[in-house]
């Protein structure tokens, strides 16, 4: 790692500061929740470094609390983290000069929030480069890890009702669901997924049902959109051109 000048560091620090502030309460909560499903301090440290994802860690807690199988947990986290594929793909445009080794290290510490910071910086600040972006990733990870570990340690001294804790996660998933409803098609996909999840859970008696529901509903939403596009294209070829602009 090359050393940064003072002004460069200040630049990095200023852009990562909002992440520090938002990661502290979220990381504390994550650490406390991980302890409630019997993670020790080392395990909380490892998952915070290796997975480094608020949504992913909350999902793990929620699934472990309802005795889901390991394969279900791995698949759900995989599908949740698939969104990073898009983030990585859009950032790769700015990282074309970098070595494979750098890309491998950089992508390990990339997540939604530091991606947002870096993407904006790459767009608006011509002096922004890959080194600074990597420091943003690492400093945000440091904040996340510290908050998580503190949470797991302090959870020993706080008594929490586990069913209440679990409902906090449900409420969080509801919030995230609402934030993703941007049009009717997505709302329909959500409804289909919810209905399928209940049906699959009852019939196959396994949490793998929610993996299946996610896959089928997202693919159905996507197919429906394609079909709609095609139909409109046939009916009125000019409309589609306008929409894409």
């Amino acid at each position, binding site marked *: 790692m090359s050393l940064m000048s003072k002004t460069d560091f200040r630049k990095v620090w200023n852009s990562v500061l909002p992440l520090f502030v938002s990661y502290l309460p979220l990381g504390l909560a994550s650490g406390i929740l991980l302890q409630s499903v019997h993670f020790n301090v080392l395990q909380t440290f490892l998952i915070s470094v290796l997975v480094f994802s608020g949504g992913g860690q909350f999902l793990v807690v929620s699934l472990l609390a*309802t005795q889901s199988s390991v394969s279900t947990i791995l698949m759900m986290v995989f599908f949740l*983290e698939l969104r990073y594929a898009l983030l990585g793909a859009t950032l790769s445009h700015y990282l074309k000069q970098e070595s494979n080794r750098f890309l491998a290290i950089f992508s390990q510490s990339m997540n939604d929030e530091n991606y947002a910071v870096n993407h904006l910086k790459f767009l608006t600040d011509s002096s922004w480069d890959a080194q600074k972006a990597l420091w943003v990733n690492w400093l945000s990870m440091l904040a996340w890890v510290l908050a998580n570990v503190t949470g797991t340690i302090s959870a020993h001294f706080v008594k929490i009702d586990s069913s*209440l804790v679990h409902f906090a996660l449900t*409420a969080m998933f509801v919030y995230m669901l609402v934030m993703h409803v941007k049009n009717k098609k997505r709302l329909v996909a959500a409804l289909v997924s919810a209905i399928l999840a209940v049906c699959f859970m009852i019939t196959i008696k396994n949490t793998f049902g929610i993996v299946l529901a996610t896959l089928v509903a997202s693919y159905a939403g996507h197919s429906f959109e394609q079909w709609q596009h095609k139909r409109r294209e046939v009916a009125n070829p000019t409309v589609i051109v306008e929409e894409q602009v």
Partner: protein
Amino acid sequence: MSELGIYGLIFGLFLAAYLPRVLPIFYFSKRQIPSWFHEWMKYVPISLFAALVAKDVFIKGTAFEWRWSHVLTVGIVFFIAYKSRSMVISVITGLIAIYLTTIFFG
């Protein structure tokens, strides 16, 4: 889950979280993102959260169960999340609502 099992799970989670991050950044530094993938990805998070919420509300163990406390609370949280657009307010509302509805409906 055993202590060793958790370490194994964390390693598996590392792969599940790292592969979607690292492969596209390599692959797409030379190519365009295919549009079908982009389009499909738009529907994955919302379907995932919907499936999780449905499971939490309607499933107890692996069986269907209609619990007024859960149904009402989730309805309230939906409304508050939509109005406030704040995660903290939504979660706190959810906790208060589930506490009260559990007292009323058992």
